[in-house]
């Protein structure tokens, strides 16, 4: 074993690891908003990408209007949340339990939002630049901000887990989604529950848009870039909102990292889609569906 093969191995591992954090951060953040709305409310929000778009524009515009970046991001999230709440009250609330109608309606919404953005703000925006330096090892380096995003993704998952399992809001939200009528009989204002859950999903999408503003070129098409990523992760993750998103993000992130290392980022992206297709074949209910089956079987064996 020659002396310089060891640093080489470390280099490879590190590079794949960095690649993984990028991918994981992107996948998880792109997905959570969609996953909360789909998992909790059974609505496939095809305007999810455009909520991200609103978050990104809110951030970009208020940044160029003179706000410091963190405040601009908060503004982006706030604007998205308000838009989400208004849309829930006026459009979405009529579509609960109507999967196809809700898809058509949210698809329509997404087109409207894209065109409005084009009309109001044109086809391009000024970049928001952020320099946080980079972490490097040998010839390879990774932007610090990209790593920070992966950390934020983990924090978001943890906070959501806490909200849904440890708070009264989370308990009522889960009860409402399981059986709205009984929840109402228990004194829960289910209408408000739907509104708040949808608002939360919109806020998370807005957060994603805000966070990726410095890392992406913000234009009216930005939403569709995230939408594919997020759908693939939801499909692979399955019905359980948080565990599904985490495991889906981890699995696809690993695949992306491996193949990006082998053949570049384009190959990585292709392999994500292929992995998703294979995943649908072997586990139509996603990873969490598979886990649930497995748990059931074990219980029956007992």
């Amino acid at each position: 074993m020659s002396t310089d093969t060891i640093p080489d191995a470390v280099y490879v591992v590190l590079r794949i690891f960095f690649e993984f954090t990028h991918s994981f951060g992107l996948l998880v953040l792109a997905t959570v908003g969609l996953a909360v709305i789909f998992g909790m409310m059974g609505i496939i929000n095809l305007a999810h990408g455009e909520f991200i778009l609103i978050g990104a524009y809110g951030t970009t515009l208020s940044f160029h209007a003179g706000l410091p970046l963190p405040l601009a991001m908060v503004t982006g999230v706030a604007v998205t949340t308000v838009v989400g709440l208004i849309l829930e009250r006026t459009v979405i609330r009529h579509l609960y339990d109507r999967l196809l109608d809700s898809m058509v309606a949210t698809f329509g919404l997404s087109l409207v939002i894209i065109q409005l953005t084009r009309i109001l703000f044109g086809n391009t925006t000024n970049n928001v630049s952020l320099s946080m330096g980079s972490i490097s090892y040998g010839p390879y380096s990774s932007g610090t901000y990209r790593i920070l995003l992966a950390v934020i993704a983990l924090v978001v998952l943890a906070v959501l887990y806490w909200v849904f399992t440890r708070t009264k809001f989370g308990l009522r939200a889960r009860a409402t989604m399981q059986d709205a009528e009984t929840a109402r009989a228990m004194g829960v204002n289910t209408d408000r529950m739907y509104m708040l859950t949808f608002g939360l999903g919109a806020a998370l999408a807005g957060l994603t848009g805000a966070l990726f503003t410095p890392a992406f070129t913000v234009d009216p098409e930005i939403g569709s870039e995230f939408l594919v990523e997020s759908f693939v992760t939801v499909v692979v993750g399955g019905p359980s909102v948080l565990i599904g998103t985490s495991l889906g993000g981890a699995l696809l992130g690993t695949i992306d990292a491996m193949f990006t290392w082998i053949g570049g980022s384009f190959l990585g992206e292709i392999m994500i889609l292929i992995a998703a297709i294979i995943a649908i074949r072997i586990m139509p209910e996603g990873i969490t569906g598979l886990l649930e089956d497995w748990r059931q079987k074990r219980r029956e064996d007992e």
Partner: protein
Amino acid sequence: MLETEHLGVSYGKTPILRDVNISIEQGEIVGIMGKNGVGKTTLVKALIGLLDINEGRVTFDDTVVADATANRESFWRAESFPQEVASTLAGTPISNAPGRLGEFFPLAAELTPDATADQRARAGMGYIPQGRDVFPELTVEENLEMGETINGDAGEFQYDAVYEFFPILEERRTQDAGTLSGGQQQMLAIGRALIGNPDLLLLDEPSEGVQPSIVQDLTRDLEQVNEELGTTILFVEQNLHVVQNLAERCYAIDKGTIVDELGPERLASRDAVTKYLAV
């Protein structure tokens, strides 16, 4: 304690209940029996204010739970706009505009968290829906916690008392409710209603789908709740055993209205009771 005056309910244009007059006193155990589809569940839902009623009213202690004539919700409703405005607009295409405004801006109503009168009354009533309806993917403990929502933060919650009545619930605390047996789910539904220490317990066919020996346990448990906690009980049933053993008196309902009221003597007679049941 609980009273209805000329209560009438329709689903759309189909009348389901008409002219229902019942009255329950503190500490009683009262039954309501009737065949399938005569409106029992509809009646219970109207009693706790889950339905919009079309005629009469329901009162619980001093609170009006439901009133057909009162314009219940907020100022967004057309009825609550000043009479002159309404009569000026009458017959014009925008006569219902204020109402539609309310449709469009329910956000305003949503953001005012004040409990409505019927919600406050419901806080004194524990409801066990037909078919039990526990939340299948919440744990036993979380299901019990849902019983708290009705009393808000003000209530005192008696987990210990519930666990004492139903030790199995404490044993299965962390199990998903959907994996409990039917009888256990029924206990959970009762426990969930008891958590907030209600004055009145409303049960919709508690014996449905529960095996006979457990039905006997259940009957005994409910009597015990009534004795020890002083909880008034109103239950809907089609089960002869439960009607005869649990009720102190019993209303008979048919085609949406009360057709008879049986005291202890007639309740003891099998023939008098089965006449109103599909036995």
